[in-house]
Protein backbone atom coordinates (compact mmCIF):
# COMPACT_ATOMS: atom_id res chain seq x y z
CA UNK A 1 0.00 0.00 0.00
CA UNK A 2 1.36 3.42 -0.91
CA UNK A 3 2.28 5.55 2.03
CA UNK A 4 -0.05 8.44 2.62
CA UNK A 5 1.35 11.60 4.13
CA UNK A 6 -1.07 14.11 5.56
CA UNK A 7 -0.51 17.54 7.03
CA UNK A 8 -2.53 18.80 9.92
CA UNK A 9 -2.85 22.52 10.54
CA UNK A 10 -3.38 23.96 13.99
CA UNK A 11 -3.76 27.57 15.03
CA UNK A 12 -0.65 28.51 16.99
CA UNK A 13 -2.43 31.46 18.56
CA UNK A 14 -5.16 29.58 20.33
CA UNK A 15 -5.86 26.90 22.85
CA UNK A 16 -8.82 24.61 22.28
CA UNK A 17 -10.43 22.37 24.86
CA UNK A 18 -13.50 20.17 25.01
CA UNK A 19 -15.10 18.38 27.93
CA UNK A 20 -18.23 16.38 28.46
CA UNK A 21 -20.29 17.49 31.43
CA UNK A 22 -23.00 15.36 33.00
CA UNK A 23 -25.44 18.26 33.26
CA UNK A 24 -28.18 19.64 31.02
CA UNK A 25 -27.18 22.41 28.66
CA UNK A 26 -28.95 25.18 30.58
CA UNK A 27 -27.39 24.10 33.88
CA UNK A 28 -23.93 24.08 32.32
CA UNK A 29 -24.57 27.56 30.90
CA UNK A 30 -25.87 28.84 34.21
CA UNK A 31 -22.99 27.49 36.27
CA UNK A 32 -20.48 28.91 33.82
CA UNK A 33 -22.00 32.36 33.55
CA UNK A 34 -23.62 32.91 36.94
CA UNK A 35 -21.60 30.85 39.40
CA UNK A 36 -18.00 31.52 38.48
CA UNK A 37 -17.13 31.78 42.16
CA UNK A 38 -17.93 28.08 42.55
CA UNK A 39 -15.15 26.90 40.22
CA UNK A 40 -12.75 29.64 39.17
CA UNK A 41 -9.47 29.43 41.17
CA UNK A 42 -10.00 32.86 42.73
CA UNK A 43 -7.40 32.32 45.42
CA UNK A 44 -4.67 32.34 42.75
CA UNK A 45 -6.08 33.82 39.57
CA UNK A 46 -7.30 37.27 40.41
CA UNK A 47 -5.71 40.65 39.88
CA UNK A 48 -7.03 42.94 42.59
CA UNK A 49 -5.43 43.65 45.94
CA UNK A 50 -8.42 42.46 47.92
CA UNK A 51 -9.30 38.82 48.39
CA UNK A 52 -11.60 37.90 45.51
CA UNK A 53 -14.86 36.31 46.56
CA UNK A 54 -16.61 36.02 43.20
CA UNK A 55 -16.38 36.82 39.52
CA UNK A 56 -19.33 38.19 37.61
CA UNK A 57 -20.32 38.28 33.95
CA UNK A 58 -22.88 40.98 33.24
CA UNK A 59 -25.46 39.17 31.09
CA UNK A 60 -25.42 41.23 27.87
CA UNK A 61 -23.18 42.16 24.97
CA UNK A 62 -20.79 44.79 26.28
CA UNK A 63 -21.30 43.63 29.84
CA UNK A 64 -18.35 43.69 32.20
CA UNK A 65 -16.55 40.54 33.33
CA UNK A 66 -14.95 41.33 36.66
CA UNK A 67 -13.85 39.99 40.02
CA UNK A 68 -15.44 41.14 43.26
CA UNK A 69 -13.28 41.70 46.32
CA UNK A 70 -14.30 41.03 49.90
CA UNK A 71 -14.15 44.79 50.45
CA UNK A 72 -16.64 45.53 47.69
CA UNK A 73 -14.00 46.51 45.14
CA UNK A 74 -14.11 45.22 41.58
CA UNK A 75 -11.43 44.60 38.93
CA UNK A 76 -12.30 44.18 35.29
CA UNK A 77 -11.09 41.13 33.37
CA UNK A 78 -12.83 41.79 30.06
CA UNK A 79 -16.10 42.26 28.25
CA UNK A 80 -18.93 40.16 26.87
CA UNK A 81 -18.63 40.07 23.08
CA UNK A 82 -21.30 37.47 22.28
CA UNK A 83 -24.19 36.49 24.57
CA UNK A 84 -26.38 33.68 23.18
CA UNK A 85 -27.80 31.66 26.04
CA UNK A 86 -27.73 28.75 26.49
CA UNK A 87 -25.35 27.86 23.67
CA UNK A 88 -22.66 30.43 22.93
CA UNK A 89 -20.60 32.91 24.90
CA UNK A 90 -17.61 34.98 23.81
CA UNK A 91 -15.65 37.01 26.32
CA UNK A 92 -12.61 39.18 25.89
CA UNK A 93 -9.75 38.38 28.25
CA UNK A 94 -7.95 41.67 28.65
CA UNK A 95 -5.43 40.72 31.31
CA UNK A 96 -1.83 40.79 30.16
CA UNK A 97 1.07 38.56 31.10
CA UNK A 98 1.75 40.75 34.16
CA UNK A 99 -1.81 40.18 35.36
CA UNK A 100 -2.84 43.75 34.67
CA UNK A 101 -6.10 44.75 33.04
CA UNK A 102 -5.46 46.37 29.66
CA UNK A 103 -8.67 47.58 27.98
CA UNK A 104 -8.75 46.42 24.38
CA UNK A 105 -5.98 43.83 24.79
CA UNK A 106 -8.34 41.55 22.95
CA UNK A 107 -7.65 37.90 23.51
CA UNK A 108 -10.95 36.09 23.20
CA UNK A 109 -12.56 33.14 24.90
CA UNK A 110 -15.36 31.41 23.04
CA UNK A 111 -17.40 28.83 24.90
CA UNK A 112 -19.96 26.62 23.21
CA UNK A 113 -22.46 24.50 25.11
CA UNK A 114 -23.70 21.65 22.94
CA UNK A 115 -26.55 19.51 24.26
CA UNK A 116 -25.72 15.89 23.61
CA UNK A 117 -28.77 14.44 25.29
CA UNK A 118 -31.07 15.50 28.09
CA UNK A 119 -28.54 14.99 30.80
CA UNK A 120 -25.20 15.82 29.25
CA UNK A 121 -23.52 18.68 27.49
CA UNK A 122 -20.35 18.97 25.48
CA UNK A 123 -18.54 22.17 26.40
CA UNK A 124 -15.98 23.48 23.93
CA UNK A 125 -13.67 26.33 24.82
CA UNK A 126 -11.30 28.22 22.58
CA UNK A 127 -8.99 30.87 23.96
CA UNK A 128 -7.71 32.63 20.86
CA UNK A 129 -5.77 35.62 19.58
CA UNK A 130 -3.05 34.84 22.12
CA UNK A 131 -0.66 36.69 19.88
CA UNK A 132 -2.27 39.86 21.25
CA UNK A 133 0.01 39.44 24.26
CA UNK A 134 2.70 40.82 22.03
CA UNK A 135 5.87 39.42 23.54
CA UNK A 136 5.72 36.49 21.15
CA UNK A 137 6.82 38.67 18.34
CA UNK A 138 10.52 38.56 19.18
CA UNK A 139 10.49 34.84 19.66
CA UNK A 140 8.80 34.47 16.30
CA UNK A 141 11.47 36.52 14.58
CA UNK A 142 14.22 34.40 16.12
CA UNK A 143 12.69 31.21 14.78
CA UNK A 144 12.27 32.63 11.30
CA UNK A 145 15.77 34.07 11.20
CA UNK A 146 17.35 30.80 12.28
CA UNK A 147 15.59 28.76 9.67
CA UNK A 148 15.22 30.77 6.51
CA UNK A 149 14.04 27.73 4.62
CA UNK A 150 11.23 27.28 7.08
CA UNK A 151 10.01 30.77 6.40
CA UNK A 152 9.86 30.20 2.65
CA UNK A 153 8.22 26.85 3.21
CA UNK A 154 5.56 28.32 5.42
CA UNK A 155 4.81 30.91 2.77
CA UNK A 156 4.43 28.13 0.21
CA UNK A 157 2.17 26.15 2.49
CA UNK A 158 0.10 29.25 3.12
CA UNK A 159 -0.33 29.86 -0.58
CA UNK A 160 -1.28 26.27 -1.29
CA UNK A 161 -3.62 26.08 1.65
CA UNK A 162 -5.27 29.37 0.75
CA UNK A 163 -6.05 28.17 -2.73
CA UNK A 164 -7.44 24.94 -1.33
CA UNK A 165 -9.51 26.80 1.23
CA UNK A 166 -10.78 29.08 -1.51
CA UNK A 167 -12.19 26.11 -3.36
CA UNK A 168 -14.46 25.12 -0.48
Amino acid at each position, binding site marked *: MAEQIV*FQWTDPNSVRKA*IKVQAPQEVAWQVFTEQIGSWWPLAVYKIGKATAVNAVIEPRVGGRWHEQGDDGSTCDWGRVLVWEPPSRLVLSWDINADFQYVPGLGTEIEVRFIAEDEGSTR*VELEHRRLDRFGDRRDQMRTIFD*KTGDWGKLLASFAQAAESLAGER
Partner: protein
Amino acid sequence: MPSELSTRSETRRERRVFAKLRNRTRTAGELAQGMGVSRPAVSQQPSEVLRAAGLVVVTADGTRRLYRVDRRGIEAVRQWFDGFWDETLDAFKEAAESAARKKGRT
Protein backbone atom coordinates in the same frame (compact mmCIF):
# COMPACT_ATOMS: atom_id res chain seq x y z
CA MET B 1 14.76 37.49 3.33
CA PRO B 2 13.77 35.97 6.69
CA SER B 3 12.94 39.34 8.16
CA GLU B 4 10.55 40.00 5.27
CA LEU B 5 8.69 36.87 6.19
CA SER B 6 7.74 38.16 9.58
CA THR B 7 5.96 41.16 8.12
CA ARG B 8 2.43 41.90 9.15
CA SER B 9 0.90 40.83 5.86
CA GLU B 10 2.42 37.35 6.12
CA THR B 11 1.23 36.97 9.68
CA ARG B 12 -2.27 38.12 8.74
CA ARG B 13 -2.41 35.64 5.88
CA GLU B 14 -1.17 32.86 8.10
CA ARG B 15 -3.91 33.61 10.58
CA ARG B 16 -6.59 33.49 7.90
CA VAL B 17 -5.20 30.25 6.58
CA PHE B 18 -4.98 28.68 10.00
CA ALA B 19 -8.46 29.81 10.86
CA LYS B 20 -9.89 28.27 7.69
CA LEU B 21 -8.01 25.03 7.94
CA ARG B 22 -8.06 24.51 11.65
CA ASN B 23 -7.41 20.85 12.35
CA ARG B 24 -7.96 19.82 8.77
CA THR B 25 -5.56 17.53 7.04
CA ARG B 26 -4.17 17.64 3.58
CA THR B 27 -2.55 14.98 1.55
CA ALA B 28 0.84 15.53 0.02
CA GLY B 29 -0.80 15.28 -3.38
CA GLU B 30 -3.15 18.16 -2.72
CA LEU B 31 -0.39 20.34 -1.36
CA ALA B 32 1.86 19.46 -4.24
CA GLN B 33 -0.85 20.52 -6.64
CA GLY B 34 -1.11 23.88 -4.94
CA MET B 35 2.63 24.37 -4.78
CA GLY B 36 3.32 23.26 -8.32
CA VAL B 37 5.86 20.60 -7.34
CA SER B 38 5.88 16.88 -7.76
CA ARG B 39 4.56 14.81 -4.90
CA PRO B 40 7.83 13.15 -3.78
CA ALA B 41 9.48 16.56 -3.50
CA VAL B 42 6.71 17.81 -1.22
CA SER B 43 6.73 14.76 0.97
CA GLN B 44 10.48 14.75 1.43
CA GLN B 45 11.45 18.34 1.73
CA PRO B 46 9.06 19.59 4.45
CA SER B 47 9.88 16.90 6.95
CA GLU B 48 13.59 17.57 6.80
CA VAL B 49 13.38 21.31 7.17
CA LEU B 50 10.57 21.38 9.69
CA ARG B 51 11.87 18.55 11.79
CA ALA B 52 15.33 20.09 11.87
CA ALA B 53 13.77 23.30 13.13
CA GLY B 54 11.90 21.42 15.83
CA LEU B 55 8.68 22.68 14.34
CA VAL B 56 6.96 19.47 13.33
CA VAL B 57 5.45 16.74 15.42
CA VAL B 58 5.29 13.47 13.57
CA THR B 59 3.13 10.60 14.63
CA ALA B 60 2.75 7.26 12.97
CA ASP B 61 -0.72 6.10 12.11
CA GLY B 62 -0.48 2.75 10.39
CA THR B 63 1.06 3.44 7.03
CA ARG B 64 0.56 7.19 7.39
CA ARG B 65 2.75 9.80 8.97
CA LEU B 66 0.90 12.77 10.37
CA TYR B 67 2.69 16.08 10.41
CA ARG B 68 1.45 18.77 12.73
CA VAL B 69 2.87 22.25 12.30
CA ASP B 70 3.73 23.25 15.83
CA ARG B 71 5.64 26.44 16.40
CA ARG B 72 6.85 25.50 19.83
CA GLY B 73 9.39 28.27 19.96
CA ILE B 74 6.61 30.80 20.34
CA GLU B 75 4.35 28.87 22.62
CA ALA B 76 5.15 29.99 26.15
CA VAL B 77 1.90 31.86 26.59
CA ARG B 78 -0.10 29.22 24.76
CA GLN B 79 1.25 26.46 26.99
CA TRP B 80 0.42 28.42 30.08
CA PHE B 81 -3.19 28.79 29.00
CA ASP B 82 -3.33 25.17 27.93
CA GLY B 83 -2.56 24.09 31.47
CA PHE B 84 -4.75 26.78 33.03
CA TRP B 85 -7.84 25.79 31.04
CA ASP B 86 -7.28 22.07 31.72
CA GLU B 87 -7.46 22.72 35.44
CA THR B 88 -10.14 25.38 35.33
CA LEU B 89 -12.48 23.41 33.05
CA ASP B 90 -12.11 20.39 35.32
CA ALA B 91 -13.26 22.54 38.22
CA PHE B 92 -16.14 23.90 36.13
CA LYS B 93 -17.20 20.37 35.18
CA GLU B 94 -17.33 19.36 38.84
CA ALA B 95 -19.36 22.42 39.76
CA ALA B 96 -21.81 21.93 36.89
CA GLU B 97 -22.29 18.23 37.62
CA SER B 98 -22.80 18.97 41.29
CA ALA B 99 -25.43 21.58 40.43
CA ALA B 100 -27.18 19.13 38.11
CA ARG B 101 -27.25 16.44 40.80
CA LYS B 102 -28.79 18.89 43.25
CA LYS B 103 -31.50 19.67 40.72
CA GLY B 104 -32.03 15.93 40.21
CA ARG B 105 -31.56 16.30 36.50
CA THR B 106 -28.59 14.26 35.30
